[in-house]
């Protein structure tokens, strides 16, 4: 059982590079502990900025730093980062095109029992709707590491959402297939296509295995790059599938499912079923309880896939 949450993988990569690259700056809003960034703050005090509980300030300061050549990574709970400082992300980051990487931690329903103020079920929709903003939901710590390394190489805005708890590895330490903005194909099949992102990749993968055991062949895609969506890979597998299932830890509107449906609808029309959180305050509980309740687990996904292809 993996014990390292994705947020910790982010901290590790940033610490590895911060020594060489003095322009890397990490910013937190009383969130260094929750972001697993306390080790960075201690090791690189000159490259760490604490702004207090002020998410708008966090994002605008990051934009100012980026304008002057720094490479800021601003980390705060996804719920606050994606909504409280939304306009700062839109204007100061995306519109002004500053090299700010927004790290939304404890995303989705990670803060289950704390209620809707702490759930971020709107962040994909909100951030994706901003021109020049990219949106990434890595599935495991190995992929998170590859993603952050890739993001260190470019100069453009991005929003990354990770969950709070460690998730089971999807990939292996020395064998993590990764191409920037390209979905990772976890298995190939011709009956049904399952597309997932973030913490939903694990149950999607397991659903693919369960379906195979029943003689149903599924393609499973890890669409960590929600925006820009890898339409090429999506459509390649959608073409041959009888139905497409999109799975995400997000509201039913404007997230991965909406984008998948848009692409499939326009290019190879067929049934698309979007599995997501509901359009109501999410029931409170820990992530597993919440996922099980809404069928966002391997059994639920497999059942949904079977129903979609009439089996």
């Amino acid at each position, binding site marked *: 059982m993996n014990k390292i949450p994705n947020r910790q993988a982010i901290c590790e990569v940033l610490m590895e590079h911060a020594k060489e690259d003095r322009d890397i700056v990490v910013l937190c809003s009383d969130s260094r502990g929750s972001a697993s960034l306390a080790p960075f703050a201690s090791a690189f005090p000159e490259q760490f900025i604490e702004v207090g509980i002020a998410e708008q*300030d966090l994002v605008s300061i990051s934009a100012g730093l980026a304008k002057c050549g720094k490479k800021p990574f601003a980390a705060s709970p996804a719920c606050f980062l994606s909504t409280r400082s939304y306009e700062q992300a839109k204007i100061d980051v995306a519109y002004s095109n500053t090299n700010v990487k927004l790290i939304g931690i404890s995303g989705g329903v990670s803060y289950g029992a704390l209620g809707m103020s702490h759930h971020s079920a709107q962040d994909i929709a909100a951030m994706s709707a901003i021109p020049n903003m990219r949106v990434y939901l890595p599935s495991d710590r190995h992929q998170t590491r590859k993603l952050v390394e890739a993001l260190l190489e470019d100069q453009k805005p991005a929003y990354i959402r990770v969950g709070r708890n460690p998730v089971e590895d999807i990939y292996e330490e020395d064998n993590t297939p990764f191409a920037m903005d390209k979905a990772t194909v976890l298995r190939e099949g011709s009956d049904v296509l399952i597309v997932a992102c973030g913490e939903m990749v694990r149950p999607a993968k397991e659903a693919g295995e369960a379906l195979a055991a029943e003689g149903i062949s599924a393609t499973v895609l890890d669409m960590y790059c929600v925006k820009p969506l890898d339409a090429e890979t999506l459509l390649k597998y959608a073409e041959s599938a009888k139905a497409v299932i999109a799975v995400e830890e997000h509201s039913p509107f404007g997230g991965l499912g909406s984008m998948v449906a848009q692409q499939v609808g326009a290019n190879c029309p067929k049934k698309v079923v979007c599995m997501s959180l509901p359009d109501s305050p999410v029931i409170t509980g820990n992530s597993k309880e919440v996922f099980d309740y809404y069928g966002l687990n391997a059994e639920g996904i497999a059942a949904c896939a079977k129903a979609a292809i009439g089996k």
Partner: protein
Amino acid sequence: MDNLKAKAYELRKHVLDIIMAGKGGHIGGDMSVMEILVTLYFDQMNISPENADDPERDLFVLSKGHSVEALYAVLAEKGFFPYEEVLEKFSRFGSPFIGHPNNKLPGIEMNSGSLGHGLPVCVGMALASRMDGKKNRVYVVMGDGELAEGSVWEGAMSGGHYKLDNLCAVVDRNRLQISGSTEDVMSQDDQVERWKSFGWHAISVPGNDIDALHAAFEEAKATKGKPTVIIANTTKGLGSPVMENKANWHHKVPTAEEYEQIMKDLDARKEALLHE
């Protein structure tokens, strides 16, 4: 008054049991805010389950919503719901007794949890009361770390501008937030001057002292032509040396041993107050 002082310690014991039962909770801020809530609910505010729908009732918003366990203990003591129900349901799957105030529960006016919302919302409530010629008062409790949110100062500006003397804000000045001392995170040690410059009447008091809080709330009521802020200088985790003034007790479930010790300390302080 004396029984209120002891009550604050009895309710701290309830908070501890609620947190143990739900396996989670923002214990430090619950303990620092207790006398503020007890003074408001048992000495100052015109609010009870009987008048919960009365448009003339006083209005309260816990802007530092993470201290909800303290609010549950106080609301249960007021009779809004049974204490046993809180113990049974807090933080459980599908329960309305979640980790922040939510107004599906009786006695809770507004949902909170995201810091920096309560004051501007209360400015709206105070404006509405004035428009309708009501005599009620509006109270909001904020954390000191919370004061870094810009929205707090937008609310402070409008409260001052509209001279809302029916509005009273309380700052739980426990000098700690998640990452440590407020002065290290984002310094703010001139709160009284700050609020005064925004047109508020500002009072700084020992914030775990019910007599001092009572006097401050009375002074606020008597202050006309401007809103009042009470800077309540409190101790985070108050009740036991195990948790007092410790940043890592912001959110924590005590171990079995810590629980025993804290209970013992709370009992001792309560007893002392009963026989004072």
